[in-house]
């Protein structure tokens, strides 16, 4: 290819003072795949999505979920999504911004959902994750606890669990922990 290199060097010298190409924003393969995911979103009822950085930054967005049945009916829960440039090789980072009394979500907003970590596969997509999160509210489970206390109450005393969830969502204390209102 050395002959090509020579030609290029000449061209480069010739073009030295000419206008270069406009600076190009490189789009990663991850951004393109995410573009596909987002443009095909089919959200569960009463779930909304927003893009705090405007229409051209899809890599950071927020999803608000309003469960339509179960213990968490009436609450609104906000999640942030951070998507990496090598998506879908790597799962998005998802955090719950609403403080919630939930066996699978801790008080820092970490979420225990298998498809976000150990069971993530590149064929899954943003829609799958949102449905997975939705499912966490309709079917909280005590077998994968992140909030140990909430999980134990759900397992041993579902009635009490329901009371605690209601109290937390209305804005109040469960044990020593205060939960801001989210209804």
């Amino acid at each position, binding site marked *: *290819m*050395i*002959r*090509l*290199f*020579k*030609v*290029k*060097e000449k061209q*480069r010298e010739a073009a030295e003072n000419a206008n*270069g*190409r*406009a*600076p*190009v*924003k*490189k*789009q*990663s*393969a*991850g*951004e*393109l*795949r995410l*573009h*596909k995911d*987002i*443009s*095909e*979103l*089919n*959200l569960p009822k009463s779930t*909304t*999505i*927003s*893009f705090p950085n405007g*229409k*051209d930054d*899809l890599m950071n967005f927020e999803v608000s979920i309003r469960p339509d049945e179960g213990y968490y009916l009436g609450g609104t829960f906000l999640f942030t999504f951070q998507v*990496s*440039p*090598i998506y879908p*090789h*790597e*799962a998005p980072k998802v955090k719950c911004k609403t403080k919630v009394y939930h066996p*699978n979500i*801790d008080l*820092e*907003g*970490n*979420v*225990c959902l*298998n498809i976000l*970590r*150990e069971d*993530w596969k590149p064929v899954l997509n943003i829609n799958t994750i949102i449905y997975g999160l939705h499912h966490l509210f309709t079917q909280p489970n005590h077998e*994968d*606890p*992140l909030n*140990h206390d909430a999980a134990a109450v759900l397992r041993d005393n579902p009635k009490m669990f329901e009371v605690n969830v209601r109290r937390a969502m209305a804005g109040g204390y469960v044990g020593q922990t205060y939960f801001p209102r989210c209804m």
Partner: protein
Amino acid sequence: MDNHNSVSGENRWRDLDKLLVRPGNIVGPNFEPGPQLRDDLQAYAKVLVVGAGGLGCELLKDLALSGFRNLEVIDMDRIEVSNLNRQFLFRLQDVGKPKAEVAAMRVMERVSGVNIVPHFCRIEDKNIEFYGDFNIIALGLDSIEARSYINSVACSFLEYDSDDKPCEETIKPMVDGGTEGFKGHARVILPGITPCFECTIWLFPPQVKFPLCTLAETPRTAAHCIEYAHLIKWNEVHGGKSFDADDPEHMQWVYSEALKRAELFGISGVTYSLTQGVVKNIIPAIASTNAIISAACALEALKIATGFSKSLSNYLTYNGAEGLHTKVTEFWKDNDCLVCGPGVLIEVDSTTSLQKFIDLLREHPTLPISKPSMVHRGKNLYMQAPPILEEMTRSNLQLPLFDLMGRIPKDVIHVTGTVTLNDRKTSALRKLRIVFKGNVDGVADMDMAGGA
């Protein structure tokens, strides 16, 4: 390196000349043996080395000793004590200095005639023209993200002719090395000809991620304790402050928390270096693996530049864990690859509105695509969903596509939509090479209907 003889003395190029001056049988296309070739290599070949770590140090030294004289190196890191065992260009007194600068200086001191320009910055800090200047890009990296980024940059120079054949003069060759402990790979990427990094991203195994609830409830290994401290405990204690893996204080904190947790559950094996390894996902680097892989990469760079031998086709794996195993596999490129593939060439009149263009796509002979969402250089031109984005992009429908694409006479856009194949509707993401006809400022000659 024998300073007073082989590196600067009379017979300095004896070995290189054996490759470049004599004819051969298994040579590359356009190989023209002779002393001129070595002179040209030294005068015209310009190589960028990405990364000045374990692989990068080796690459710089190997390329310099192979006759390349115009090298540049880019790395954002500073030298740490733990680098010194294998990043052989660095000394104890260099700790804290930029790797790129020290590596460039050391190789220039030892190999006369070579010029190495260091760049102490992130790869994203350089604009596209910077990368356009090099004939070959050699990658000595340890992250998928960085490889993916450089790959997309190198592929963006690629243009196709109207028959969807890659234009040779736009191909930006890459040689990529990677090592993990006793294993490594060396590959040649000629965008448009051999598979690019995205064509074969599945070659990289996904990172192991432990379930958070295991970390929180039932840790069984030292790594579980470390990830607990890193992912759960850190946020609990530090609230909004984000964890920085390059901050030794942060790492020390995670280490001591992991140790406490391991004690609580009677788990052994938490060490500081394991903590670094788990948090940064590093596998211990072995100097000899780096040397072998870099040598293979430097040789491929020399082959690409001079054609003295056919290029590796196209992926070499090396395993020195038990005995030695090495193998070359020829992977195939993905013709539909969004990064290196040709995409579909479409000519459009410069006055065409976005809505009209969408109608055209639906009727297009080779690409009937309906309900398209479109993105151009990171700008969403139109989104079918979700409603909030549809609303934000709807007003674009009435504007000329040419204006929306910044009045660039030819460029690439990506389209997601529904295609019908054998009466079945499937969703697809496609690359389109748009070429504008009609009144496009300053471009008279449209024969080169390409677009990166």
